[in-house]
């Protein structure tokens, strides 16, 4: 390559943009995570406080609450999404006009903006005029006038519902891809060897989908950890702080209380959690690879 210097030169603008928009803020947030900086009092980072911001977090009820809320949210939404996606994939596995059509309309929930989903669900669960609230009330009289979003448990359930509704289609497609890569012969061999449908699924198909299911689970976990949009537009973190996820809490610390140092430290804690999950996942994948390429 004779034009090597030129090719590096051409990369410079792209690199500068990444530097300015990603790397610099990242590094900067890392720096201020170790400083005291109340934006209402001063317009530049204050004194170095060591790990204070981090240690404070683990004594502060707001953070601990958001950690708990996030855990509940992540576990329920990941488990439900995985279960629904896998079930839908099994149903949509066969080919045919109906199945193709269903696959197409399945894309719609995923095409919707999460913020918008929050707004629409907020309306739909409004006890006065919400279509779901009213509909449920009509079918089950006991549910008439239930103040859905005013109950901590119910609003968490609805938050999970919106997220599962949003993500299941996409994850269904990933599962469909995984299912398609399971060789037909392995199932057929099992049928002949004498396995029941139940055993074929759990003993033959599912183990071969381990890789894909891991990807789905990890991706979904990471997305769920970042849950923010619907919290803003659907529950506002409430009632109380019952749906205050980590991302939403960090946002509040930074842009409502203007505590930049603390918010940065929290953001790095969240990043750390995600990194741990990713590392664990990559290691699992590497050890799985040998098996999966049969």
């Amino acid at each position, binding site marked *: 390559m004779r034009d090597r210097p030129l090719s590096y030169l051409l990369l410079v603008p792209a690199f500068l943009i990444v530097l300015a928009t990603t790397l610099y803020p990242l590094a900067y947030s890392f720096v201020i995570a170790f400083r005291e900086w109340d934006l209402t009092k001063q317009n530049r980072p204050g004194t170095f406080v060591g790990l204070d911001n981090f240690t404070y977090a683990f004594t502060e009820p707001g953070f601990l609450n958001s950690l708990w809320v996030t855990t509940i949210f992540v576990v329920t939404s990941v488990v439900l999404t995985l279960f629904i996606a896998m079930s839908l994939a099994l149903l949509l596995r066969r080919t045919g006009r109906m199945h193709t059509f269903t696959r197409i309309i399945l894309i719609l929930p995923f095409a919707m903006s999460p913020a918008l989903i929050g707004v629409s669900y907020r309306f739909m669960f409004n006890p006065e005029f919400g279509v779901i609230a009213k509909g449920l009330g009509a079918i089950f009289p006991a549910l008439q006038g239930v103040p859905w979003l005013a109950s901590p448990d119910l609003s968490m359930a609805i938050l999970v519902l919106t997220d599962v509704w949003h993500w299941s289609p996409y994850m269904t497609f990933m599962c469909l891809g995984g299912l398609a890569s399971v060789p037909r*012969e*392995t199932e057929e*061999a099992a049928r002949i060897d004498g396995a029941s449908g139940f055993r074929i699924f759990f003993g033959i198909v599912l183990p071969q989908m381990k890789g894909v299911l891991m990807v789905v689970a990890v991706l979904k976990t990471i997305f769920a950890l970042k849950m923010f949009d619907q919290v803003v537009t659907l529950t506002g973190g409430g009632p109380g702080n019952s749906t205050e996820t980590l991302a939403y809490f960090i946002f509040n610390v930074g842009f409502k209380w203007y505590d930049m140092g603390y918010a940065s430290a929290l953001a790095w804690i969240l990043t750390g959690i995600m990194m741990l999950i990713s590392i664990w996942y990559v290691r699992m994948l590497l050890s799985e690879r*040998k098996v999966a390429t*049969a």
Partner: protein
Amino acid sequence: MAEVKLVDVEKRYGSFLAVPKQSLTIEEGEFLVLLGPSGCGKTTTMRMIAGLEEITAGDLMIGGERVNDKPPKDRDIAMVFQNYGLYPHMTVAENIGYPLKLRGFNRQAREARVAETAEKVELGKLLKRRPSELSGGQRQRVALARAIVRTPKLFLMDEPLSNLDAKLRVTMRAELKHLHHELGVTTVYVTHDQMEAMTLASRVAVMRKGRIVQLDTPKMIYSEPANLFVASFIGSPPMNLIDGVISQGTFTAPGVNLPVSAADRGNVVLGIRPEELDLVPADGEGLFSGLLYALELTGESTLVTLREGTTVVCARGGADFDAPIGTRCALVPKAGARLHLFDKDSGERV
């Protein structure tokens, strides 16, 4: 052990007719080979018997019972898949033992059976490996072992030796033959290798475009091919097929003059096996005379190809036969040689 009966069975994929309506009875304890070129419907036929493919029309009977609607697991069969169909997440031992596990054998019985079977297919040292760590031939032997690990009513084997090297193929062939002798289980065996068919089968069904064109013992298939397709498919090197005419009791073609006992007709194909021709000196009473075109030493004999005009004839000569290319040679049928006459248009035996 059971008799398998296909009665007017037909298979369509949409509008594509893969196996046209036909009947076939596979007798109890028989080793039936489905032989035919790739794409002729062997696998489809076998999959219908296995219950993996729905039968479009007709009845399938196993052991006197109509099983069209019986799921594969209740048909008590074992099958070797063309593409192996091994379970990638299980070790070789687990793969082989899976049918036993599903049928409730305890661990001890399973391990003993698996070890014994693995020995038969020379896999004893690989029991702990996963399929991904095996060669094609080794995978195929795992598939074979998984099928023969238990004694079902019926064995279905779809090209189970296709990926083995020549030596192992011969060993496995003998192993299968012995196994069949020992257990006497009805076996349907698919192959496109005529040698395998001839050596293993009690009867061979030669298939073409989904249809069985001849069903007979290997001996009869070889000595009395029902049509040109069978004649050219069976035998290595294949039967010589010479286009010509018969007039006044003599078959004539470029370089050929052969008395035959058949009525006069044009458009006829004469077939004679290379093994049934003798090389004679060029000016002898050669019934075919031609120029030496190629010599191939196979070890125990030499394949001699002669050519005259458009006629090409191959004969099997002694291992020590040698002559320069281009030499004129002649061939005569051996005493008792079988001449086959086919109608050129229909391909049927005359």
